[in-house]
């Protein structure tokens, strides 16, 4: 690790961060953040609803802007920084991807649950055909053994992915688990390996470093760590740490710090911290974007969010199943009522 290696940082403040904004970014917010990231020298930034293109819904929260409006607001201010979008097959459809391509997106990140890579073939082929860079996202990677993650990563590679990510959607992975999975993918794939962290156990920076040490060449961050649950790896902190370690990122540290402090923080509805609910996500292994939806259900039914999240983890609920929150909350309420009756 003595020689300088280049690490590509993809900033997803305008996608994963959208969860923490309850998908209410305004066009002016997007323009300001994107411009600040461009000034800071970010290679690629991701702009989409938190649940990807087509994610605006009752299930995941309605976006203030359409995907198209969001992409336009970002594209307008970008010159060198590449524009990426996220798409989850089953939520977003081909038309969404075609729209994103027309609006200037050059990178398509196609995400599936860690065992379901084969539903990404259709969209990866389409993105490839459109000349986009394709990044495969294997979500909830903590739920499966390394060999399974490799098997699924190989499928994505065979569909044309240029990079395959180990995605710790629940912020539940420990550094050794990150090391094993990234190392195995490095060994078994010919394409690059990426890593996406959540900070629910306070390990976002540590896990990202572990991934880099095992050979990950692409990693995600968000300004001020804004993102689902306790948030993602803070881009500015990662830039500082990688600079100290001697990695090359192309990011201007002062400018990315300013972007986080002066541009993003004033927009944040609440500080990005590891509160009890966020910690419960990481501990129980639950998809990070469930947090705010769980808060709402818990408040309405007078429950502790932790009880709901732990039960969701026990049931091995996967990303996208936000409707299970209300289902589980109603069942817990019924149980509590039944107990009271006894």
């Amino acid at each position, binding site marked *: 690790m003595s020689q300088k290696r280049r690490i590509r940082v993809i900033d997803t403040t305008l996608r994963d961060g959208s969860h923490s904004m309850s998908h209410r970014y305004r066009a002016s917010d997007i323009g300001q953040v994107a411009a600040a990231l461009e000034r800071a020298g970010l290679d690629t930034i991701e702009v989409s609803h938190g649940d990807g293109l087509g994610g605006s819904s009752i*299930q995941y929260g309605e976006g203030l802007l359409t995907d198209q409006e969001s992409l336009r607001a970002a594209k307008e201010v970008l010159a060198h920084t590449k524009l990426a979008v996220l798409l989850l097959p089953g939520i977003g459809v081909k038309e969404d991807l075609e729209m994103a391509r027309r609006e200037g997106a050059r990178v398509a990140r196609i995400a599936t649950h860690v065992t379901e890579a084969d539903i990404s073939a259709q969209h990866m082929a389409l993105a490839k055909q459109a000349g986009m860079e394709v990044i495969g996202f294997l979500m909830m990677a903590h739920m499966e053994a390394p060999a399974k993650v490799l098997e699924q990563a190989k499928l994505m590679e065979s569909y044309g992915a240029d990079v395959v990510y180990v995605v710790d959607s629940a912020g539940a992975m420990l550094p050794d688990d990150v090391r094993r999975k990234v190392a195995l993918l490095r060994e078994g794939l010919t394409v690059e390996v990426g890593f996406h962290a959540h900070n629910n156990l306070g390990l976002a920076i540590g896990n990202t470093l572990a991934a880099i040490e095992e050979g990950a060449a692409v990693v995600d961050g968000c300004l001020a760590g804004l993102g689902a649950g306790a948030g993602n790896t803070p881009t500015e902190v990662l830039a500082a740490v990688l600079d100290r370690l001697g990695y090359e990122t192309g990011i201007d540290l002062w400018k990315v710090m300013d972007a986080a402090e002066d541009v993003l923080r004033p927009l944040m509805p609440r500080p990005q911290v590891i509160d009890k609910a966020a910690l419960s996500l990481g501990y129980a292994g639950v998809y990070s974007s469930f947090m705010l939806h769980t808060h709402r259900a818990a408040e309405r039914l007078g429950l502790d969010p932790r009880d709901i999240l732990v039960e969701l983890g026990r049931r091995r609920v996967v990303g996208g*199943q936000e409707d299970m929150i*209300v289902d589980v909350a109603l069942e817990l309420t019924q149980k509590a009522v039944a107990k009271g009756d006894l």
Partner: protein
Amino acid sequence: MAVKVAILGTGNIGTDLLIKIKRKSRLLEVGLFAGVDPASEGIARAGEMGIPTSTRSIDAVLEDQEIRIVFDATSASAHLRHAPLLRGAGKVAVDLTPAAVGPYVVPAVDPELKNVLEPNINMVTCGGQATIPMVFAVARTAPVAYAETVTTIPSRSAGPGTRANIDEFTVTTAKGAQVIGGAKRAKAIIILNPADPPILNRHTIYTVLEEEPDREAVTASVMDMVNTVRGYVPGYRLKHPPVFDGKKVTVMVEVEGAGDFLPKYAGNLDIMTCAALAAGEAIARKMGEGRTQGGGRA
């Protein structure tokens, strides 16, 4: 006298449908079980059951003058070829593929196929069969501005066809929620869950009404529709009474398979074969045969 039918496609869906017809239907009789693969387990099983089989697929079906209804459980591309041939031969097609040559049919919404004149009907998707009745149940009480359906399928019962065509699933389901369910706008979401032991197939149906809903009327309509669906899909259940939040109504259902051939967790496949059987029987009734026989097992 029972109406003679053929099943095209000898995979899981075709086999489950064969067993359902044989066990439950007095209106239909399987005269031919046809595919292309001589090594198909389905063909062997049908042969053991004493059902005439063929590996000459559509050709064998076209040659049999007595066959009047054809269930197509092959693939969308194959059905696009089969549809004009079946029409030309005067046979009615019940299409279980996403080809959607003919109009969508959800038996709970139109049990006697009163609105269908074409000799080709499409069974939408498994998500559509489970969610559209709920959209319709709400929409018949008051106008629905928007419907959103979330279908979660146990990974093991999502076949290669569904996986390779996941976009078609979401687009077709959403379209069915509009055309048959009566929602002005609609969105469909599908999620695969690999949990082991498998979860049950479940569906959440959100509707947004134009005005505040009449809660009693909506609840009564939903309960009534659940019973209608249960008439031909015994494992269809409401998980919780409808949840109201302003103009929004949330309904959750789950579908346990009958376990005829497919495992019980594969409710998503069971509801397709149940719906196809119900539609096939309605067609048989329309043909004026078996009028006094009553329906299949209610």
